[in-house]
């Protein structure tokens, strides 16, 4: 910090100097010049005193614990390794049996919906792609589809198929990641290595196409950022030839293995009625036997032109959710094979001067093209007034984008309906009556991504 560590004013000058931004209750958010900044303020900026964990002011003697009924409330997280990020669960225990659970979220809240109101529609995908960081392309797709619906644009054929290819590959990557972490949570660390190994193949392909392994900003309003690179068919072919064999290995490693089955069979059961009432979607809903998949039931892109099965479970326990995800990878690979066959040639961006900047080549020859390019990237394009809700099937369930436009170049309100955020509400139901060791399996089977929960 470079400040005198014996600064005695540290304790005394706390409250008065801290009223710069009245909106926050945790002191000022702005720094003065360095000479004028006290150590307290610097410390606050570095996070040592700002954003204390909740409950730090609680005197343990003040907590009213009733010893008579012998229940105990314990906190799991937010730093527990098997809570998949910063999920905190408050659990009421009777011995080892869980009675009530309350998920406490918000530790990763960064105000992305507010941020989204300050970004143009072209900048928007860079923001939303960071929400569900295991399925970034789904976020970009739903944002782009909402924008395009407001604009009334119809995408060229190739754009639609490229988007489907990328999103399905992303679904495989996300489910493989889940297989890895689920194995890790349940004590099969070799599964983690295998899951990451297979995911790596897909991420390498993404890197080739988009330039990045995560947070691609590849799917944008008006098309995709770049065409598929030469030789993409070979990469896709090697993915769909390699992974099915590996999935069969998982079957041998986990599906038929008694120790694994002991951990997941009849654990964390949720019924179809409960799942629907709690608005759960995705693998959680399907594991209860409800065949609901937006790709089939409310088709978007070209999902009505490919063949695939909707995988359902039967009793909605952790094993059902495991097998739904495992077999969804197989179905996704089936879809990818069909996409690779059907991929048409054509434009990878819509030829609409309003939303598409001119190609790089034109900028060197034409002043108008340069101005046009500059305008689209600085001011953005205007989107007609209106409001729209678009929903697609992400690996975790229904991801929706509610977008309001006031006719300017930035969304007036941009809300993402995160599937993890809603699915987390099923945890108290799944855990009730189970033992605390099973909580790990159940939390893992919900597959929450905290970036999307907290946004």
């Amino acid at each position: 910090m470079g400040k005198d560590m014996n600064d005695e004013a540290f304790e005394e000058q706390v409250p008065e100097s801290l009223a710069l931004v009245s909106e926050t209750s945790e002191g000022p958010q702005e720094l003065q010049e360095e000479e004028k900044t006290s150590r307290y303020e610097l410390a606050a900026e570095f996070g040592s005193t700002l954003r204390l964990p909740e409950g730090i002011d609680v005197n343990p003697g003040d907590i009213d614990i009733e010893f008579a009924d012998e229940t105990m409330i314990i906190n799991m997280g937010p730093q527990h390794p098997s809570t998949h990020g910063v999920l905190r669960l408050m659990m009421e225990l009777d011995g080892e049996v869980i009675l009530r659970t309350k998920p406490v979220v918000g530790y990763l809240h960064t105000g992305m919906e507010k941020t989204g109101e300050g970004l143009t529609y072209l900048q928007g995908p860079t923001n939303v792609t960071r929400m569900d960081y295991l399925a970034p392309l789904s976020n970009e797709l739903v944002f782009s589809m909402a924008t395009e619906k407001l604009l009334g644009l119809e995408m060229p054929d190739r754009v639609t198929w490229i988007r489907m290819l990328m999103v399905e590959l992303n679904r495989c990557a996300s489910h493989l990641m889940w297989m890895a972490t689920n194995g890790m949570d349940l004590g099969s660390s070799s599964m983690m290595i295998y899951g990451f190994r297979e995911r790596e193949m897909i991420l390498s392909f993404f890197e080739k196409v988009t330039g990045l392994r995560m947070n691609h900003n590849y799917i944008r309003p008006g098309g995709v950022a770049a065409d598929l690179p030469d030789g993409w068919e070979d990469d896709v072919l090697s993915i769909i030839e390699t992974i099915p064999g590996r999935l069969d290995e998982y079957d041998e490693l986990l599906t038929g293995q008694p120790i694994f089955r002991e951990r997941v069979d009849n654990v964390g059961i949720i019924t179809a009625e409960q799942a629907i009432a709690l608005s759960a979607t995705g693998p959680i809903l399907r594991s209860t036997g409800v065949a609901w998949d937006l790709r089939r039931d409310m088709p978007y892109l070209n999902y009505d032109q490919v063949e695939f099965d909707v995988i359902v479970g039967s009793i909605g326990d952790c094993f059902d959710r495991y097998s739904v995800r495992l077999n969804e990878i197989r179905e996704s690979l089936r879809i990818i094979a069909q996409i690779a066959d059907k991929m048409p040639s054509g434009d990878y961006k819509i030829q609409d001067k309003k939303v598409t900047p001119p190609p790089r080549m034109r900028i060197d020859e034409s002043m108008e093209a340069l101005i046009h390019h500059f305008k689209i990237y600085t001011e953005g394009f205007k989107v007609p007034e209106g409001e729209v809700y678009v929903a697609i099937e992400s690996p975790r369930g229904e991801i929706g984008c509610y977008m309001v436009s006031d006719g300017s170049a930035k969304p007036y309100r941009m809300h993402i309906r995160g599937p993890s955020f809603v699915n987390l509400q099923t945890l108290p139901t799944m855990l009730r009556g189970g033992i605390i060791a099973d909580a790990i399996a159940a939390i893992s089977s919900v597959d929450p991504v905290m970036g999307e929960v907290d946004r």
Partner: protein
Amino acid sequence: MSMSEVLHVERLNYLATVTDLKNQGYEMCVDVVGVDYLTNMDRPLPEDVIPERFEVVASLLSLSKRSRVRIRVQVPQDDPTIETLFFLYPGTEAMEREVYDLMGITFLNHPDLTRILMPEGWEGHPLRKDYSIGSVPVQFKSVNGAG
């Protein structure tokens, strides 16, 4: 794109309309979202709808009919309250808390209306249009090696 319709409902009829829709086969409430129209009061609305500052939008989904319906309710600035849907759709618990937390709309009879994303004891509702996002100026080192 699937079938989807928009209903404008008065605040007093909100709960009754949603109950009706639930009985008609809209089994799931997928989303509840609040919008602050402070700087966009002259937005296009049907003629019989009086624009208010806030809007609560609930999206219902029917699995059996494969259709969606979106309910838009006007909520006035001086009384930002609306009935909760919790007793029809328990899954709205977290969504309504999010709207309360970030938009400051109170859901009447909600079982646990507390902040969900922002820290407890935070003042203000960040997604309101009159909530300042503040700024953090870049701090440069002094030239003369002080500090």
